């Protein structure tokens, strides 16, 4: 149908199409011989699409959309007015551009903060360039060249990419500052770790506690056994060898006469054994061990155990440090050791004392041990984390319970030590409060500490006289200062010249009295001056009047904005209401106090020096945030008279340095937004001349010099 219509319009007369003949009766007959085919159907929007589109898929979709559109009954909203549309567009554009621009902010601030910018920022590496870099796309052509290149190839000399030999690369790397720094840091760390490890090992080696070593060796042994068992399962051959080794060790042990009662210690024990149960027991133990060792046993594991028993010969508590509550307080230490310990322990102490002269080194070591313990106990007090050594102690205690149940005494002793520690900690604050009063009073005679109100009373008694004296003088001063100057009275002021010109004159004796009479001219002049000066003899009052007038003039005036007759009756003899007058009277803020407020004989002008202000800085330059900062900076001299040469050069270094002949490209976005395209090669930071510059300036940005 559309087709026909179109034809009808386009070809009006000459090329008229043949009229279709009517072959059947129809109700609706067009006057213009137009067919009424498909009559009664409404033309739909989608029908119009049919001939235009070729892709059926889209067509269907569009058709559906159009249908939906037709179905909608409610009216379409009016399109926005131009202004509103533009407003929205502007807003969107603003957001977009502001985000775009804000990306530059960090770079800009960085550049502004930089002490010096060297352009172009991406600089070629200094030094001679290789020929390959300079002449790219150059090929060996002559036979000589080819020969050379073949030689280079032979020697693993890369020609194009990479241009450096591995050796050269390594050397370059060795030369690079960053690498060197990293390497140095690594070395430092390694060295530090080593020293820590060494210190630790040394400390552990120095630990005198037999218990500790016993536990250590036991743990080692256990581990070894475990390994051995594993070895038995996996590699019986190796296990056998190990076993042989162990056997050899045992044999050596047996051969040595270590556990006979021949040692120094053992001899002493023999002597002591007569009186001391503990010593006797220790002796017995050693004898038992000897027996065990000398017995020929088939089981090797038992031997090992006995071997382990060996270092335990000395009862451990002998070496236990004396638990000290407060090392700084010798008072406390003595007291506790005397009172809190039982008779047994005191005995042990004696024993220790006997031993001490024998080996001073041991004593030293013990001291260290004591310190260690102390530290430990402190740690306990501050944090509940159990330290390594403590763990060891605990493990040892457990073992002691398991194996040496007969050594009840020792456990008791341990408990005692713990109790002592605890007690010390409890007692400490008490000592601080009371102990000082008792003990320290004798020591510190110079200082008198007041601890309670009673004490202060005592003090007062002591220094009564000295305290009483200053009080009246103070009060008298107060009175003197309190009596107000009568100047304040607003009525007729009586000016006391001595108040204004405060200084009292001192008479100077003059050796030569003036003899000569001054010139007549001068004298005449002076007489007139004197007449002027003493006209009223109220030079002072005149001055004060002037000053008062100036003060009044400089006071801000009250502005009265009342309109008489506005909102109420006005006229002669009528005043605006008080409320109105108060409301419309504008009181200006009071001025800051005058500089000469406290100087009666001085008038200081409050005018600002506008001429000077023209030369002053009125807006803080960029990096400064406070005027004080700026003032301090600007006041410090720059020249070489006041500074060292280096400082002066640093102070006067130009803000921007450009290389002659170098092209300075404008700053590019790609250079500073890294994350967007990480594929892009980053410019090499190390290659910039100044490392500080490389830090301050963004990696690859260029900027046009202004």
């Amino acid at each position, binding site marked *: 149908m559309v087709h026909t219509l179109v034809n009808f319009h386009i070809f009006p007369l000459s090329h008229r199409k043949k009229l279709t003949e009517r072959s059947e009766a129809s109700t609706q007959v067009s006057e213009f011989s137009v067919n009424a085919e498909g009559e009664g159907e409404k033309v739909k929007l989608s029908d119009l699409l049919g001939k235009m589109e070729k892709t059926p898929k889209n067509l269907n979709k569009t058709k559906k959309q159009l249908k939906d559109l037709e179905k909608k009954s409610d009216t379409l909203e009016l399109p926005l007015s131009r202004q509103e549309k533009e407003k929205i567009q502007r807003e969107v554009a603003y957001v977009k551009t502001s985000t775009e621009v804000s990306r530059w902010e960090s770079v800009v601030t960085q550049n502004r903060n930089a002490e010096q910018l060297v352009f172009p920022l991406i600089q070629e590496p200094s030094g001679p360039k290789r020929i390959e870099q300079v002449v790219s796309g150059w090929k060996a052509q002559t036979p000589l060249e080819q020969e050379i290149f073949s030689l280079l190839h032979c020697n693993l000399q890369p020609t194009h990419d990479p241009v450096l030999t591995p050796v050269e690369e390594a050397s370059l790397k060795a030369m690079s500052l960053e690498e060197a720094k990293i390497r140095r840091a690594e070395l430092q760390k390694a060295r530090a770790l080593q020293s820590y490890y060494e210190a630790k090992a040394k400390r552990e080696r120095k630990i005198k506690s037999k218990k500790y070593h016993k536990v250590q060796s036991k743990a080692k042994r256990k581990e070894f056994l475990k390994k051995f068992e594993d070895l038995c399962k996996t590699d019986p051959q190796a296990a056998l060898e190990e076993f042989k080794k162990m056997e050899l060790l045992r044999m050596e042990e047996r051969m040595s006469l270590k556990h006979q009662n021949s040692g120094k210690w053992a001899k002493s024990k023999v002597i002591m054994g007569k009186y001391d149960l503990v010593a006797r027991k220790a002796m017995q133990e050693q004898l038992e061990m000897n027996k065990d060792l000398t017995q020929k046993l088939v089981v090797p594991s038992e031997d090992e155990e006995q071997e382990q028993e060996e270092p335990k010969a000395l009862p451990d508590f002998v070496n236990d440090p004396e638990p000290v509550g407060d090392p700084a307080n010798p008072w406390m230490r003595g007291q506790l050791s005397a009172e809190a310990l039982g008779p047994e322990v005191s005995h042990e102490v004696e024993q220790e004392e006997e031993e001490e002269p024998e080996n001073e080194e041991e004593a030293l070591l013990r001291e260290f041990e004591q310190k260690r313990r102390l530290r430990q106990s402190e740690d306990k007090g501050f944090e509940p984390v159990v330290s390594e050594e403590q763990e060891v102690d605990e493990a040892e205690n457990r073992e002691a319970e398991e194996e040496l149940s007969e050594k009840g005494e020792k456990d008791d002793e341990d408990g005692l030590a713990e109790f002592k520690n605890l007690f010390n900690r409890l007692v400490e604050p008490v000592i601080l409060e009371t102990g000082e009063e008792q003990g320290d009073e004798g020591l510190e005679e110079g200082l008198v500490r007041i601890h309670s109100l009673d004490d202060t009373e005592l003090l007062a008694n002591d220094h009564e006289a000295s305290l009483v004296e200053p009080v009246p003088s103070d009060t008298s001063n107060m009175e003197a200062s309190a009596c107000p100057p009568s100047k304040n009275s607003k009525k007729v002021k009586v000016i006391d010249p001595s108040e204004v010109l405060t200084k009292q004159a001192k008479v100077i004796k003059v050796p030569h009295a003036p003899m000569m009479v001054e010139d007549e001219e001068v004298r005449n002049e002076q007489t007139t001056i004197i007449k002027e000066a003493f006209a009223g003899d109220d030079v002072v009052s005149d001055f004060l009047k002037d000053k008062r007038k100036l003060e009044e003039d400089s006071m801000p005036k009250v502005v009265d904005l009342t309109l008489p007759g506005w909102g109420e009756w006005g006229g002669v003899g009528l005043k605006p209401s008080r409320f109105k007058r108060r409301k419309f009277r504008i009181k200006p803020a009071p001025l800051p106090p005058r500089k000469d407020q406290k100087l009666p*004989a001085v008038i200081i002008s409050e005018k600002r020096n506008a001429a000077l202000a023209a030369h002053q800085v009125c807006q803080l330059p960029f990096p400064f945030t406070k005027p004080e900062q700026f003032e301090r900076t600007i006041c410090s001299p720059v020249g070489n008279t006041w500074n060292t040469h280096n400082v002066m050069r640093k102070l006067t270094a130009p803000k921007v340095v450009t290389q002659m002949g170098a092209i300075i490209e404008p700053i590019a976005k790609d250079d500073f937004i890294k994350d967007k395209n990480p594929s892009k090669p980053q410019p090499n930071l190390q290659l910039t001349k100044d490392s500080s510059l490389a830090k301050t300036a963004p990696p690859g940005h260029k900027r046009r010099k202004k």
Partner: protein
Amino acid sequence: AVPQKKDPFPGQAPIPVERVKKFVRGDVDKVDALSAWIGQYTLLMVESAWLDTDIWFDILFSLLQYFNLNLSQFGPYRLDYSRAGRHLLLGGRRGHVSCIEWQSKALISEINVMEAVNDVKWLHNEAMFAVAQKKWLYVYDSKGVELHCIRKFNDVLRMEFLPYHFLLATASSSGFLQYLDVSVGKEVTAIGTKMGRLGVMTQNPHNAVIHLGHPNGTVSLWSPNQKEALVKMLCHRGAVRSLTVDKTGMYMVTSGLDRKLKVYDLRAFKPLQSYFLPAGAACLSLSQRGLLCASMGDVVQVYRDVWGTSVKKPYMAHRVRGAVAGLAFCPFEDVLGVGHAEGFTSMIVPGAGEANFDGMALNPYASLRQRQEWEVKTLLEKVQPDLIGLDPSMLGTVDRATWQQKHQERVQALGFDPLAHEKFKPRRRKKGRSSSGAVEKRKRKVAHEDQRVKKDKYYFH
């Protein structure tokens, strides 16, 4: 051709013989006597070989520093030493002006200006000096040739030269304080002080502020930037006779008709010491090391440490031949120059001068070349008069005045408000198109522009 008339009295008008007689200089052979005197001493030195020559030289040099110039004819003398202390300028009340290189006693020039001389002052170097004469201010070169007669500066009584600003400050009898920029020869400012005759004047070397003493006992401080006094202090109950400020600018010493001598702390504007002198001091001067000299009639007294402890008696006293009119310590020398009615006396005051001079700033032993270079350098480093104020370090501070204040100043300076925006006034149209509604519409059309302009002006200026 116009027939030329012959001048019946060619040349300058002759000066009456009697008047010339009045101004003829006195003893001519004074200098000869002086040289004879020097010769005598050198002879003495040579004769007594037993004394160490160095000591003799010292004695001789200090002896040479004491001398009298007997100039009784031309009345009380005002004087001024050059800044390096080599040259002395003497100005007699009755017109006698002479430049002397006082250490070698060489007379550089000597003129009689044939007029009353109120004050003399060296300018920035020894090549020029200013003389305040009866009516105008004159500038002469060291040869005595008149360079300028400055008619803008009349009835000058006292002068001060501000070396770093190249300003010559003058105080006149009509109460005007004027500043002359010597480097360009222009008047910087003229301030009518309204304080009467300005006969007492000094400068604060620290901040180049001019101190004036007044008959009503006040001392006022002035800078060329402000038409009113920076500070006014009531110092004396009678007129102020003389005042002086020390090198550091911390202390001011004044003397008044009430016969008092007062020391003020200029940082706090508070009196530190007050002394009563039986005769009162007519002239005051402070040396580089802080010695104070005061003259009473014909007696010159020197005091030590007047502001520290209260002084009981003078350090030195000396009687000269006539009433003292001018006092000045010679820089870098232990010498006090006294100008009086009978001539000039150079007296020795031990410990007065600064022994350690800064050769880069002021070098008494500078060569000719150095002096020339110094002149150029100081000219290049000339400080603008705008920077004169009570606190010389103010330039280094940030101007914290609000925007409004600055704007107000700008308006005052320009005479109009540069930011004032004229309100849009719609043109009157005919044929009923200027109905109030239409006018409003037109106004509304440009309202936003108005707003924008205002914003721009207030935020970006």
